[in-house]
């Protein structure tokens, strides 16, 4: 970043004045005002709609508040209640389940696609477009199509499994298979996005390194593990962080595909916040769940940054 101090006073013809103390002070003030005037239109919206709500969230999590009436301060009561709340535990474990399976699968699929599509073959641009397409289509349309594809008796997926003699499960109607079904759909949907990030990362790998490895007689697999993977580390790190946050906040796909069911088998943290808040109007309690989600995401991000820093040094 090579940003210079804005010097509006310097007009054409006037030689760049040596910095005098009095002047530099008013210059700082001037550029501060100009800088803020650029940032303000966005910042007002950003502050009112993001920063302030985050602060209020922590206050609300310490109150019992429903739509009617005022917010009563209850301190940490909500959090004590969370410790006993079976549904909350279920939502937390389901979210972890989703994250633990979804992250490596998406990572593998998107890296695999990126490696496959990072070559000079005709039509490769078309294939990249295809892989990215599910990511930008609407969640509702995707969810309903997949629900139909996965329907237990007559759905095409189970019919196709039948060709291989596999008796397909009930997918979204089964409490064991509903979560795998959601994970399947979300991997299918998101891998194109992360593939693009990996593709961009693959371009930063210097080709000389491959040449050198080849001269040393490294096999394709050795070149992958000793050249590609280390060079991709920053990208992999970034993708993992983004994937983790995305996993913890998963909601819309769940809402439309299973609405948390059958039973509570696909109830996730975000949905529990949604239910407690917007369905049952327990804003205070819902906020304490939201605080948990907030803290998990921040903690995971900080942890990943620390690990990454350590590995780099």
């Amino acid at each position, binding site marked *: 970043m090579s940003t210079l101090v804005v010097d509006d006073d310097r007009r054409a013809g006037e030689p760049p004045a040596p910095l005098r103390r009095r002047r530099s002070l008013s210059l700082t003030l001037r550029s501060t005002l100009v800088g803020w005037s650029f940032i303000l239109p966005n910042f*007002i919206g950003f502050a009112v709609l993001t920063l302030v709500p985050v602060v209020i969230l922590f206050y609300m999590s310490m109150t019992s508040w429903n739509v009617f009436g005022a917010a009563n301060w209850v301190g940490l009561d909500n959090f004590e209640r969370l410790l006993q709340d079976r549904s909350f535990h279920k939502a937390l474990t389901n979210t972890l389940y989703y994250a633990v399976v979804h992250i490596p699968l998406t990572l593998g699929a998107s890296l695999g696609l990126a490696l496959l599509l990072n070559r000079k073959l005709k039509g490769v641009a078309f294939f990249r477009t295809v892989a990215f397409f599910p990511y930008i289509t609407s969640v*509702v349309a995707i969810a309903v*199509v997949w629900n139909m594809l996965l329907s237990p008796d007559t759905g095409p997926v189970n*019919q196709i499994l039948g060709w291989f003699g596999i008796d397909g499960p009930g997918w979204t109607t089964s409490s064991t298979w509903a979560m795998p079904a959601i994970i399947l759909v979300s991997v299918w949907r998101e891998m194109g996005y992360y593939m693009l990030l990996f*593709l961009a990362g693959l371009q930063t790998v210097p080709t000389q390194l*491959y040449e050198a490895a080849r001269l040393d007689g490294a096999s394709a697999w050795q070149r992958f593990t000793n050249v590609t993977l280390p060079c991709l580390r920053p990208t992999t790190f970034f993708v993992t962080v983004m994937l983790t946050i995305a996993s913890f906040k998963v909601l819309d796909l769940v809402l439309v595909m299973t609405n948390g069911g059958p039973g509570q088998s696909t109830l996730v943290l975000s949905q529990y916040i949604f239910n407690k808040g*917007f369905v049952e109007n327990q804003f205070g309690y819902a906020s304490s769940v939201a605080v948990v989600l907030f803290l998990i995401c921040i903690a995971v991000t900080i942890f990943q940054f620390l690990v990454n820093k350590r590995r780099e040094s």
Partner: protein
Amino acid sequence: MAATLTPPTPRIEEPPVADRRRSPLAPVGRVLGYAVMIIASAAILLPFAWMIISSLKSNNQVFTIPIQWIPDPFVWQNYLDIWQKSDMSTWLKNTLILSVTVTFLQVLTGSFAAYGFSRIRFPGRDVLFLVYIGTIAVPWQAYMIPQFIMLSKMGLSNTLWAIIALQAFGAFGVFLMKQYFESVPEELSEAARIDGLSEYGIWRRIMMPLCVPAIASLSLITFVNTWNDYLGPLIYLRDRDLWTIQIGLKTFISQYNAEHALIMTGSVLSVLPIAVIFLLGQRYFVEGIASTGVKG
């Protein structure tokens, strides 16, 4: 700086060494590569194909054993019926209004703020930008409740303004535009400054015209996100005449849950505008994502 899908950009298309040195196995690898690519993309596209096929069937043909790949007869009528049986035109109109407004505001305020962050130095700037980036790790689901209460108190709940407010001021636009602005040589703005152009003039006459690809990326991504947003409208829009395509479609699905073919018709119509926009501007999508992603 940015990667694109199209051939003219050299960086993403640069052939790996493997292709330059021809080994006897090269043609085999090539054929294998194509085979895997074709299978992979067929698998990825299959749900969309099935959606389109089913939208042209009659209801009881959607689920048959074995799968019927070609509708017989083609029920084009579905595409006429859906307009009668649903408020499709209201939904599409609302969604279009929202997407256009949000995109306009996001590009305008986002690029303006990005100029402040990338070109003007003042105390506290970098900390402020860190706060912007930091919110990337905070999921919207965590603060949607206090935000809802605030917007309700402002009287914006159950209006289209709520969705506009929700989507228009994200950190994403600032972030993406800043990445691009920083790739423009400082000397250009310096020269303009010496010629007497104000900072606003530099933003307007130099940065914006030079960053048309970035504006295109941001516009497309914002437009598509707003079009596909489900949760925001679900929480804020109660009145039927305010519904967007996603909410409308979801309600339609629960209302007509036995009309499989018609549901698929609605789904096709909700995806179609996005598909067209995507095909027209896919280069910019990739640019936007590649440039924001890797440098994050």
